[in-house]
């Protein structure tokens, strides 16, 4: 009973981590809280679904299409919308300005998706055979999503820790004001971080579309869940997002199994608010970071 509940929690947590990794990069490195993040994911959901239902291109293949597209879109949004704000140079206002700008983007994208894809609930079946794991049967597509999110999380962590590029990225995340002193092009790094976040959002969208029912209005739900994980894990901390995602998944499943399924969402928000109050920089955040 407990083992199977834990297994379910980890699977669900993998999904949450997947949702959050792109956002944590965008906020951590580019210093932009992208509230339209969920819309990026949703866009990818719709594209992948379209590829699958129209031409039979599976979502895992579709992943190869939408991930680069997500990178390009992230790059364009950063260049077109965020750079003018960054150039204003008022650090105090930058935060509010970027929030409002991405807010605007959220509504524009949502409106466009409503018109293009309609308001139907969308869902399709792919790889949903059961696989037995620790006494419970879980869907194969969820295992795939968990595996990919672990691979992305650990891979990114390794790259950020080991490579020169990763070191530059971390320098920008740690000290955006002084990173240029050591010859790092802060603006370019920020843009790459943001674009990479876009790519991860698209990848996440493609993967969750395999098992979630979504409609054009659901972007905010994705963003909110991702935000909770990002804040809990510590902004810009990929490994933290992974751990926080798993924790959140476990909490939700444990509440559903042992307390009351009616309180799962309340538990999520309560856990988040407590972490926020207790450690505003996240469970794994740097103090003062």
């Amino acid at each position, binding site marked *: 009973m407990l083992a*199977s*509940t834990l297994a*379910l*929690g980890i*699977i*669900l947590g993998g*999904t949450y981590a997947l949702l959050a990794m792109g956002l944590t990069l965008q906020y951590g490195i580019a210093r932009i809280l992208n509230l339209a993040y969920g819309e990026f994911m949703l866009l990818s959901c719709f594209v992948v679904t379209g590829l699958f239902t129209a031409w039979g291109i599976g979502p895992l293949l579709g992943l190869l299409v939408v991930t680069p597209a997500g990178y390009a879109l992230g790059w364009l949004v950063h260049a077109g919308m965020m750079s003018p704000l960054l150039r204003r140079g008022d650090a105090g206002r930058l935060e509010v300005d970027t929030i409002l700008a991405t807010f605007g983007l959220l509504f524009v994208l*949502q*409106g466009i998706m*409503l018109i293009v894809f*309609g*308001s*139907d*609930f*969308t*869902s*399709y*079946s792919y790889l*949903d*055979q*059961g696989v037995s794991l620790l006494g*419970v*049967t*879980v*869907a194969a597509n969820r295992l795939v999503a968990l595996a990919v999110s672990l691979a992305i999380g650990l891979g990114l962590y390794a790259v950020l820790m080991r490579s020169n590029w990763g070191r530059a990225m971390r320098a920008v995340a740690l000290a955006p004001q002084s990173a240029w002193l050591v010859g790092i092009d802060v603006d370019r790094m920020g843009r790459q971080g943001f674009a990479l976040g876009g790519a991860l959002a698209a990848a996440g969208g493609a993967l969750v579309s395999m*098992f*979630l*029912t979504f*409609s054009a*209005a659901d972007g905010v*739900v994705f963003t909110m869940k991702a935000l909770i994980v990002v804040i809990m894990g510590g902004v810009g901390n990929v490994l933290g997002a992974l751990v926080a995602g798993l924790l959140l998944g476990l909490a*939700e*499943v444990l509440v*559903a*199994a042992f307390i*009351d*399924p*009616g*309180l*799962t*969402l*309340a538990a999520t928000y309560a856990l988040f608010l407590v972490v926020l109050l207790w450690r505003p920089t996240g469970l794994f955040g740097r103090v003062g970071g």
Partner: protein
Amino acid sequence: MTMTSRRALLGALPMTIALSLALPGVGAAQDVVRIGYAVAKSGPNATGAGITTIPNYQMWVAEVNAQGGLEMPDGSRRMIEVVEYDDRSNTEDLVRAIARLAEQDKVDLILPPWGTGPNLAIAPLMDKAGYPHLAVTSVTDKAPEFADRWKRSFWMLGGGHDYAEALVQTLVAAREAGQINDQVAMISVADGFGIDLVSAARPAFEAAGFTLAYDETYPLGTSDFAAIMNEVQRSGADSFVAFSYPPGSFGVTKQAQTMGYNPKVFYVGVGGAFPNFPQVAGGKAGGVMSIGGVDSASPAIQDYFQRHTDSAGSPPDSWASAVTYASLEVLEQAVQRVGLDHQALAQEIATGTFQTVVGDLKMQDNQLRDLWWVGQWQGDKFVAVNPAERQGATAPVIPKPEW
């Protein structure tokens, strides 16, 4: 110079807008019928309105206009002119839009919004302005009370009790036939609709001698049903009942398939009768029960499905869509008989009999009671199962074939 004019412009803009809002709409030409509606085109209600309400309104208007317009008692025809607003799923905006339709646009008829809450919110205003109010997509047990309070309101989709008790009836029949045991696992979404049904179902199940082996409510917005369905499977019940909304209905179906959970009765709430449900279920929807149903052998229904597919690009849902369309046919025929006078119209709708896609339709105390409460996927059709004695009902397939 430019400065002054720009400032003047900035100052004048809100003024102009306010004026254009305050002035009544341009006087309607005599040869058109102006029909207005305010429905959710954005926000949380947009999904429901986009599936059930808007496609039927658009299709009906297009069809009537293609025939030369709405027929009047004297045999003349007047084209329909539509005035539509987006209520943004916001009740305050909706109430204001209805006042605007009645007072500024002076439309001849007002079509209802989607959902129980929105219809209740506009009822006092519709009543005050005297418009007949065909509150189609409202499921409420208080319909008799409301019909009494607002004399020109019509409630056409029954109440939570009707659906819950019909389901219990169906299960009792199956139990008496020795098809299922007396254990039921039940989940419900924590929203007005889910709670209405579950609070009616609980006593009904117990009175019928069923035991609720699992009975929990989950929050609206839940996307992962693995933990819940795991408990449900463990409960050992032969019958699984979910009073759910579309994301939940889809979610539990997929989860049950993945787990290989094969209860003998598998019932989901709203969404189970959606045209894309078989696709969601991976082509294995056969045997799944849900709310509503249609008499799929009826030529009128078949024709309606075909026209809806041609007009909206997809078949209608098999619960509220046909009733919504039927309400428009009621309106059309009532206008043909008595014209556009609101009192005469309300009187005719309350007392007349109308030929519609769901059969001959007659209101009882301002309510439509001849409805299908339980349906089931059989083949590629969502057929009506309960009331079992009603003409057009199909016998349910229990136990449900394995996924």
